[in-house]
């Protein structure tokens, strides 16, 4: 039995490595993905391009502009000369927000009379807009307090809120995204490999040749999934090393635990790959089905947006996604450094889900062969 599986595994590897292009895509794709994701997938709001319409031109308005710029969150890119120009700049997307300081601003502040500032934000990207607005309000609020403090020594009572951020104290979104991307890349590669490699035999017609050999269905399944798992593991190692050394994402937990959990994760991923292969006749169908499958899985896993913000119905669906559990595991191991005592429910869920899916697809696969 092992001899037959071994032969099939060798045959698969020969197929993968025969064409230079295939090898390139197998190993370059994950690397390019992690590079792009690592650099691009950031929700951090920095250097928001800003237009400043300063009608006052006083030392106070300049001070405020300086504070906005030195915060690092805003870059004053344009100094429009009229309200019409503001409209144009925002319409074209040249700036994301515009600040208008009216005449008399500096004088009012010197006299201690309440004054106001107009802030216009392009709300198209609601997330960035919300964060940018928070920053502006904080900066203006602080400036306003400093000015009051300089005038009257008003000792107003206040509640002192101390925020402490755990696990990712610099609030770098890269640290959050990169571990998630690793999980996604491994899933993508393994899904495409298993589903397409089985369907290929069927499409090209070599499946019949395989069936006249003494190989049994289970051996065939193993022979097809083992190479995918090996390549999946290799890709995982590749992107993890890249994430840790290039993007300097900290890994606080045990690497060994990560390796073991990846195995549990691959169980369900390969199971789904097998399942896709049983519903597709051609490689195009397999690829379409893979895309069809992985997009909802990624979206409904907490990869980009937290699960608890989803409506209840969708929250229930997420329980079927292996990625949901694996994301908690990778992020836990990378950022929180937690161990098996915290992660056991996720590991158990992956094992149960994996076994169930693998069994179902193996049964379906056998039936289709017969």
């Amino acid at each position, binding site marked *: 039995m092992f001899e037959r599986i071994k032969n099939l595994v060798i045959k698969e590897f020969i197929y993968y490595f025969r064409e230079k292009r295939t090898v390139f895509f197998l190993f370059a794709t994950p690397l390019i993905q992690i590079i792009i994701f690592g650099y691009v997938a950031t929700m951090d709001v920095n250097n928001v391009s800003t237009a400043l319409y300063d009608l006052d031109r006083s030392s106070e308005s300049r001070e405020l502009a300086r504070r906005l710029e030195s915060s690092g969150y805003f870059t004053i890119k344009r100094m429009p000369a009229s309200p019409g120009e503001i409209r144009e700049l925002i319409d074209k997307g040249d700036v994301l927000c515009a600040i208008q300081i009216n005449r008399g601003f500096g004088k009012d502040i010197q006299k201690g009379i309440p004054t106001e500032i107009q802030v216009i934000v392009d709300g198209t990207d609601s997330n960035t807009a919300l964060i940018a607005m928070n920053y502006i309000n904080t900066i203006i609020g602080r*400036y306003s307090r400093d000015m009051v403090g300089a005038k009257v020594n008003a000792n107003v009572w206040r509640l002192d809120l101390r925020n402490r951020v755990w696990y990712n104290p610099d609030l770098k979104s890269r640290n959050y995204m990169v571990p998630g991307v690793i999980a996604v890349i491994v899933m993508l590669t393994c899904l495409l490999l298993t589903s397409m490699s089985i369907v290929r035999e069927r499409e090209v017609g070599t499946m019949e040749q395989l069936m006249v050999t003494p190989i049994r269905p289970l051996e065939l399944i193993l022979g097809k999934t083992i190479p995918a798992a090996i390549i999946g593991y290799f890709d995982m190692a590749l992107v993890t090393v890249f994430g840790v050394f290039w993007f300097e994402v900290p890994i606080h937990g045990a690497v060994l635990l990560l390796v073991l959990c990846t195995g549990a994760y691959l169980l369900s991923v390969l199971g789904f790959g097998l399942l896709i292969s049983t519903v597709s006749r051609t490689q195009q169908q397999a690829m379409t089905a893979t895309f069809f499958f992985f997009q909802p899985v990624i979206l409904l896993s907490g990869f980009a947006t937290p699960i608890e913000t989803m409506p209840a119905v969708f929250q229930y669906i997420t329980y079927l996604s292996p990625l949901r559990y694996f994301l908690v595991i990778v992020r836990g191991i990378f950022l929180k450094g937690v161990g098996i005592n915290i992660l056991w429910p996720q590991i158990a869920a992956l094992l149960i889900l994996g076994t169930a899916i693998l069994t179902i697809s193996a049964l379906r696969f056998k039936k289709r062969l017969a």
Partner: protein
Amino acid sequence: MNILRIKAIAKKEFIQIWRDPFSLAMAFLMPVILLFIYGYAITFDIDKIRTVVFDMDKSSLSREFINQFHESGYFRVNSYVESYKAIDPYLDSGRARVAVVIPENFSKNIRKGYNAQVEVLIDGSDSNTATIAQGYTLAIAEGFSQRMRGTRVTPLIDSRSRVWYNNELKSRNFIIPGLIAIVMAVIIALLSSLTIAREWDRGTMEQLISTPVKTPELILGKLIPYFLIGFADTILTILMSTLLFNVPLRGSIMLLLGLSGIFLFGGLSFGILMSIVGKTQLAASQAALLTSFLPAFLLSGFIFSISNIPKPLQIVTYLIPARYFVTILKGIFLKGSTLKVLWVEALLLTLFAVIVFTAANRKFRKRIE
């Protein structure tokens, strides 16, 4: 060029698509399902953040303070703990993202008029949620201080914020128009990337080579059926976004359809080019994933804004047609932009389509190696 031969190839391709109802169904189901998920499940609006409270004071004032968290709607206080140590497992396992710690002398300090302190621990692993949660906690503390002071001290500078284009700051309005580009990029990649590779894989290319069909005729013939499917998908997604999700469509629908057609043509030509270069279906599928779907998703400004990307990668985004198309979609939907604002994007999309179509024609070798 012979119209008859193009028609013949297009007809053959149509029959092949028709024989494969599975892929055809996917081509129409995928946009619907993606729109549903993005429209209903994916929101960047953050609320109901799970919160754990360690209240050492246990006074009416501390309870009122906690109540402010609840009432804001942004937080959902779901557990209380009795020690510092007990907070750790909540944050470690993700059962809570925020922990509020109220010290013993909280109400005593308030009554005596001393400043009171509250400690907030935030799980920063999801930095985006954490940043927004931080902003909310500060606002709640500020509101509470003002209530306790009894008087509202008017701040010296009142910043009046106005939000344009999407004034309720709904992330749905931001996501859905861009999503149309993503859906189209995916469909294009799936449909066209395997068409040529499939003929090579199955050996039917040799039969095609022996026919008098010329390269541009073959490529156009392969392109037309997928163009029609893609265009039907576009109309479907536009209808769903406006009618089902009430995303405002402020600009001209004709302009939208015209530019979508150009994007489709360029994208399909690119898929066919990948198919010619990739040769085997596995390689072509990986190539399509790498060159159409990922850039459209990541480098187009769909979710992640381009200005945040490091400079070298920003230059790369200029090569990605989805970038221009996302700008066009968001412009026409939310800003009501006209061709006067969008002409650069439209021109570049057209240029891309022409170049890629020519490249596909030149790259294709109609001979047996």
